[in-house]
C-alpha cells in the first residue's frame, strides 16, 4: 500500500506558530510551571513579609511603651512571669525606730532668697529649700518597708526607702515568648 493510500496512519502534523496564535505561554506545562513557581515564591515572600512585620511591630511596641518593654526584658532576665506580683515580706514591726531626741538640733542653714533658683520642681511658689521640707511631716506612712528615723521637733522626717528583698528565682521554665502579632 502506498503512502497516499493510508493518510490516517501518518503522524499528525504539529501546527506551526503562526501570527494568529493565542498570546502568552504556549503550553499547559509552561502555565503549570509558572503557577507552581508563583506559589513557592509567594510562600517565601509571605514568610519574609511576616517576619519583617513581626520584627517591626516588636520595635514599635518597644518605642511606644518602653516601661512595658523594660518590664518584659527584666522578667525575661530574672525569669519571673509578668503576671506575678512580688509582695514584700517585711512588716512594720520589723522597722527599727531610733530615738535621736537626745542629740543636739541640727543648725538651720539659710540660703539666700532666690525663688527661681531654690524653687523645687513641682512645689508651690513659696516653697524653697530653706523653708519647706521635701517630704511633708504629716505624710501617712507608706506601706513600703522603710526605716523611720525620729528627728528632733521641727526637723523633717527622713525616710530611707529600702528595696524589697529579692524574690528567689523559681525553677527553670521555658523562656517567655511573646507573640505580639498573633
Amino acid at each position: 500500500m502506498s503512502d497516499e493510500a493510508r493518510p490516517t496512519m501518518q503522524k499528525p502534523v504539529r501546527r506551526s506558530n503562526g501570527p494568529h496564535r493565542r498570546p502568552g505561554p504556549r503550553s499547559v506545562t509552561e502555565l503549570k510551571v509558572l503557577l507552581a513557581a508563583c506559589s513557592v515564591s509567594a510562600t517565601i515572600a509571605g514568610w519574609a513579609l511576616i517576619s519583617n512585620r513581626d520584627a517591626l511591630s516588636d520595635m514599635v511596641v518597644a518605642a511606644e511603651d518602653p516601661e512595658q518593654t523594660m518590664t518584659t526584658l527584666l522578667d525575661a532576665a530574672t525569669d519571673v512571669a509578668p503576671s506575678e506580683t512580688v509582695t514584700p515580706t517585711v512588716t512594720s514591726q520589723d522597722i527599727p525606730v531610733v530615738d535621736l531626741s537626745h542629740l543636739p538640733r541640727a543648725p538651720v542653714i539659710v540660703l539666700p532668697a532666690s525663688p527661681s533658683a531654690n524653687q523645687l520642681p513641682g512645689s508651690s511658689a513659696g516653697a524653697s529649700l530653706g523653708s519647706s521640707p521635701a517630704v511633708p511631716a504629716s505624710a501617712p506612712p507608706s506601706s513600703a518597708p522603710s526605716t523611720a528615723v525620729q528627728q528632733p521637733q521641727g526637723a523633717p522626717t527622713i525616710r530611707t526607702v529600702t528595696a524589697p528583698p529579692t524574690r528567689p528565682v523559681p525553677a527553670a521554665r521555658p523562656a517567655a515568648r511573646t507573640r505580639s502579632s498573633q
Partner: protein
Amino acid sequence: MQTKHQSLEQDLNELGGWSPVTVVMLLTALVVGEVVGLLLLPQWLPGLSSSLLGENQKVYWYLARSSGVVAYILLWMSLVLGVLLSTKTASRWLGQQVSLELHRFSSALMVVFATFHVVVLLGDQWIRYTIWQVVIPFASEQYRPFWVGLGQIGFYAALAVYGSFWLRKFLTTRGWRLLHYAGFVVFVLLTLHGLYAGTDAETLRPLYQVALYTLLLSVFIRVLMRFQASRTQRAASLAAPEAASDAGSRASEGLPS
C-alpha cells in the same frame, strides 16, 4: 514572504523551544525580581535571619501562615476555574483543555500547600502540636481549637474533592457531581478557618472578601447561563413539533420542504 519577526520567532523556537512571549516574560520577571530583591533584601534580611537563627525560631510558624494563605488562593483559583469551565467562559479565555488542566493542577497544588501548612506546624516550638493533634480534628487545645478543627475537616474534604478527579471512572455522574460540589463546602470551611484561626485575618480581610465575591459572581454567571440555556432548549423543543408538522403538511401537499 516571511517577515523579519516571523524568522526571529522561528529561530527562537528552534533554539530553545520557548515562545518569544515566554522569553520576554521570564526576562521581565528576572529583572523585576533582581530589582525588588536588591531593594527589599537589606530590609527583610534581619527579620528572616532572626526567624531562622534566633533564639525563638519562628520560621515554622511564619511558613505555616504564608503557605496557608497560598493554599487558600489556590483553592479559590481552582473553584472559580471549575465554575467558569462549566459556563464555557474559561474555555473562551484559555481554551477548554488548558482550563481543565489548570483547574486540576491548582487543586493538586492546593493540597500540596495545605499539607505543607499542616506538617510545618509540627516544627513550631511555641504551639507544640503532636502528630495526633495535627491529624485528628478538634484534638488540639493550644490555639483556637474549634476553628483549627474546622480547618482540619476542610482539609480532609479537600482531599476527597481532589480524589474525585481520579475516581470519576468508578462513580456515577450524580455521585461525582455531589462530591465535586463539596468544593464549595471546603471553601466555606477554610474561609472560616482563615478568618477565625488565621493570625493575619485582619490584614487579609480584603483577600477573603475578593475571593468570596468573585466566587459568588462566577456562580451567579453559571446559574444565569444555565437558566438561559434551559429557556433556549424549551423554546427549541416547542418549535420542533411545529416545524415537523409544517414539514409534514408540505410533504402531503407535494411541496418541497
